[in-house]
């Protein structure tokens, strides 16, 4: 009956925790549906907002910003709900009782948030193109916008995970997350939006805006994710 314990490697812990999140999502599909529908609704709001502008407004210039507005608010919704399962039955304490490095919890939860956000983006970005960019002709290499999308999503979901861990047990939690998230994520948002707009417009100087912006966004990701990794142990066991 006696049980032999062999402390698993960090990577195994990471895989187990990630599989738990993914299994839960496959069963309930709660995160993806709610974020997907929410993104669709934001698109509809954009449509209403820009409907009356006829041709006066050059959609090319604006669409980069619109796309990132959509992503910020969708990720805010997703991040707010990312800890629901943990809080519901006190499972977070169950995980904290396990002898593992707390930052692995951060890595696993950040990865699952990134994957959910990317899954939603795979649906909504083509829809965004369909709704807004078919009327105008974007620059020929506009498909490169996948790069800022990827860098931006990793950054937002990563730092967002740390912030949602903080706000999950404060009162007024969804307002609190937005209040913290938007100013802190501003540099990444600014860099990605500039890169995306530059690439969509495709004007002649686009490339020497696109690459520095992308590089800076990646730099932001690295610094902030490392910082979140270091600070996570304090936050989760507070």
């Amino acid at each position: 009956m006696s049980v032999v314990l062999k402390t698993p490697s960090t990577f195994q812990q990471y895989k187990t925790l990630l599989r738990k999140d993914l299994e839960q999502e496959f069963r309930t599909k709660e995160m993806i549906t709610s974020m997907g529908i929410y993104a669709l609704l934001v698109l509809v709001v954009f449509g209403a907002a820009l409907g009356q502008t006829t041709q006066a407004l050059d959609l090319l210039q604006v669409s980069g910003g619109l796309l990132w507005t959509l992503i910020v608010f969708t990720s805010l919704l997703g991040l707010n709900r990312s800890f629901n399962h943990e809080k519901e039955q006190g499972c977070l304490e169950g995980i904290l009782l396990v002898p593992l490095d707390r930052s692995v919890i951060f890595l696993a939860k950040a990865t699952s948030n990134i994957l959910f956000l990317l899954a939603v983006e795979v649906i909504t970005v083509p829809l965004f193109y369909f709704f807004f960019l078919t009327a105008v002709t974007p620059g020929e290499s506009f498909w490169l916008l996948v790069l800022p999308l990827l860098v931006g999503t990793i950054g937002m979901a990563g730092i967002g995970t740390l912030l949602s861990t903080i706000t999950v047990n404060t009162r007024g939690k969804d307002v609190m997350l937005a209040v913290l998230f938007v100013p802190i994520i501003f540099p990444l948002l600014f860099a990605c939006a500039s890169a995306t707009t530059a690439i969509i417009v495709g004007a002649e100087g686009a490339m020497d805006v696109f690459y520095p912006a992308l590089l800076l966004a990646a730099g932001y990701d690295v610094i902030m994710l490392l910082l979140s990794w270091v600070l996570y142990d304090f936050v989760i066991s507070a």
Partner: protein
Amino acid sequence: MANAKKSHALPEGGQWPDAIAFWAVLAGAVLTTIGFLMAFLYAGPVNGASVDGMPEMIGGQMVSSKLLLSQKIFYFHMPVAIVSFGALAFAGYYSVRFLMTKNQRYDTCAKVAMEISLIFVVCTMITGDLWTRFEWGVWWTWDPRLTTYLILMLIIIAYFVLRGFIDEPERRSIYSAVVSIIALVDVPICLMITRMIPSSIHPVVLREGGMTGDMGMTVGVCMIGMILLGFGMYRLRFRQVRLAQRVQALKDELEEN
């Protein structure tokens, strides 16, 4: 500094820094007023756009461009901005100390430092915005410096909103320490990113060319004045908060037995 030998140390105010807090505020006030006067009387005006026509002889110098008064705001704008960053750095330092030692005293230091940073950021925004209003004729442009201070102000406001939303002292101080460290890392990145991405819409007007001797002197005086003022206000506020905590602790003690 705090002697924790007592079984449960009551929160107490600072020791030697408090004595000089009052003098610091005084010295700061005096120096800033001197700086104010120097800005207008001593420092030479800065040349604005060049004037088409013959240069004129004014005060022993050949002047060939518009003389700018608006540049005078700079003498207070730059020191105030530096102090707000300095206060943020202090808050970050105390937050790290708090996370290492979990001593509530450092949490109070960080909170007060953040307050000072907020006050000075508000001042920076006022002076910066008015300068923009005159210089570029618009109330707001997404100019790198102004956006960075806006983000700094928003993060500090978020810091205080977060503090307001949590009641448990221990959890509140841990979360605020983490947010303040993130702010300390995030704001310089924001300054860098907004400045380095060539925003196609609006060329960044960088006018702070070389500073002549007298201008440097004025900025120096204002700078020292502002730092002293900031430090003095910090100590004053810190003493007030600690005293309030001490009163509260005494009340609890009295209720108990």
